[in-house]
């Protein structure tokens, strides 16, 4: 049986974690950069979980941020509106973790519902249905006054921090990586390569497609909950179509099917995005030209087109870094 070399990965993550903490506490790195790292790690969860649906099972989903939205709103409602916790509440951390997990489960349930129509839909049709689903979720949040409607759910306590987010990202990578190399993962890969052939050799395609949606949605919901408790708000516009496309760009830039690729691309593109934001503002200030933040999305869209035209396999192809390669165990 093949298994992930967990101790080695753990050592790497602990070194990474300690390095960031030391840099931050010695003030060599400011809170802004730490915030971007936190965001990158949440995007790692989103990209890796979308990769399970899109890259590994081959079910083209365009509504991933819809699942994240469910997680954000459900966990935010639990922590903010039901328990009214804040970081100084005794036992607050426990309720926070409970809220995040319930948010993930709620997203997984929605993923289960979305997985069903996907049984009869292929490729581009599924893309449209998931897109529509994302928009419906957004419209629903926009119209529920209890969670703030178009104002968004505000005043969510800031529980997400570097530690919680790192742990969540690590769990996501380990679970999905192990899943891919299990017999379940083989079945999912078979569906991606040729659904009809997979069915003919006895893979229960229905089961595995729904499973991919449920697990992918669960982690997206976790990511959404962490986002809400990091930014201290959940807003309908955070979970729209364009945001889903940003995650999609990450998996295609990193290489469809490669978890390493998704992870690297999530970091690279989150930093690129912030860099562009700062760069564009600097150019606008220096030249006095009316250059707006829209140019950031122009760069993003061109990036997507060029990846598809010239490097369809992305940065990593389907390869994985040594760190998360599997090795034979007795």
């Amino acid at each position, binding site marked *: 049986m093949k298994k992930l070399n967990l101790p080695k990965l753990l050592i790497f993550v602990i070194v990474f974690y300690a390095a960031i903490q030391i840099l931050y506490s010695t003030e060599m790195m400011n809170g802004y950069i730490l915030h971007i790292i936190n965001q990158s790690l949440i995007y790692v969860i989103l990209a890796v979980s979308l990769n399970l649906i899109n890259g590994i099972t081959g079910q083209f989903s365009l509504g991933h941020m819809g699942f994240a939205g469910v997680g954000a709103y459900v966990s935010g409602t639990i922590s903010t509106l039901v328990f009214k916790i804040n970081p100084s509440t005794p036992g607050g951390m426990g309720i926070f973790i409970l809220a995040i997990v319930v948010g993930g489960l709620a997203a997984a349930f929605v993923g289960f519902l979305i997985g069903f129509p996907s049984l009869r839909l292929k490729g581009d049709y599924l893309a449209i249905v998931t897109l529509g689903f994302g928009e419906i979720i957004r419209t629903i949040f926009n119209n529920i006054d209890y969670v703030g409607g178009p104002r968004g759910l505000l005043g969510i306590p800031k529980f997400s921090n570097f530690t919680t987010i790192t742990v969540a990202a690590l769990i996501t990578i380990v679970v999905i990586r192990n899943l891919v190399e299990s017999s379940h993962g083989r079945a999912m890969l078979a569906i991606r390569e040729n659904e009809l052939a997979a069915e003919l050799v006895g893979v229960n395609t229905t089961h595995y497609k729904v499973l991919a949606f449920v697990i992918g949605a669960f982690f997206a919901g976790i990511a959404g909950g962490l986002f809400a408790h990091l930014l201290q708000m959940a807003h309908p516009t955070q979970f729209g179509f364009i945001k889903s*496309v940003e995650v999609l760009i990450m998996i295609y830039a990193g290489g469809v099917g490669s978890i390493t690729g998704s992870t690297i691309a999530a970091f690279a593109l989150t930093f690129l995005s912030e860099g562009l934001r700062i760069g564009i503002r600097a150019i606008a200030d220096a030249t006095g030209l009316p250059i707006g933040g829209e140019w950031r999305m122009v760069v993003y869209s061109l990036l997507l087109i060029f990846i598809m035209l010239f490097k369809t396999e992305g940065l990593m192809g389907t390869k994985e870094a040594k760190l998360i390669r599997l090795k034979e165990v007795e």
Partner: protein
Amino acid sequence: MGAIFNAQQIVNGLQVGSIYALIALGYTMVYGIVRLINFAHGDFFMLGAYAAYGVFFAFNALFVGKTGLMAFVVLIASMAAGGIIALLANQLAYKPLRYKPKLSSLITAIGVSMFLEYFLSALPAVGPSYRSFPDILPRVNINLGNAVISNYVIIDIVIAAVLMVGLTLLIKKTTLGKAMRAVSQDKDAARLMGIDIEKVIAFTFLIGGSFAGAAGLLAGMTYPRIVPYMGIQPGLKAFIAAVLGGIGNIPGAVLGAYIMGLAETFASAYNSLIGEGIAFAILIVVLLVRPHGLLGEKFADKI
């Protein structure tokens, strides 16, 4: 119920349906020929509206007193803009991916769509905010007892009908139309018969884009404001209309668009939230119950 199903709503529904039909035709033609959902199609609609806006303000002074001629020039401009950009998108972005996995073209189409929207909003001359669309023709309200119809409604329905009749003639009566039908049936066989497939595909994009551009002008005139993101919603709904009618099927797209326009108008009159969601409800029901659409042909998986 009387408040929902009255003559006024039916006329409004037909007007919305006409605009959807013009967009849906492009979707369905492109899908019929290259099996690609052209996500950027809604943006050709938006470009048509902006081209009309630009041409109207640039040349309005030359056409004082000749509003009819001006309206015609604006229509041509909007069709040209939609058609030419669609053609360019095909040549630059879709053609190199023609024989790659289908999803590559779909993702590229999403990229093209985002590029067109954000590039226009990033351009200082256009900008991301709403602009009010000028009255190209004078607005007249006609009172028909229990319904008030603006002349714009009639213009929308008539222009859409004329263009659709023109398209039907093109497809049924000309050699090019015959080539288009051949390519949509079997690309390889069509190539063996000496049809230049790329030329036919390029032409399909040109026609589809120009129809979307014309729809953009009609929508701009009717709801007199435009914005770079205006194509997203009508684009999606027109796509759903095309699926409802049976994607790849031209009469189906028109039928689907009118059903969609009417359904949406009635639903919005009942409740605005249901109005927003009905399109997706229709899509999910169609895909579950009759995935090949009302008039589409059923295909089995080939082994």
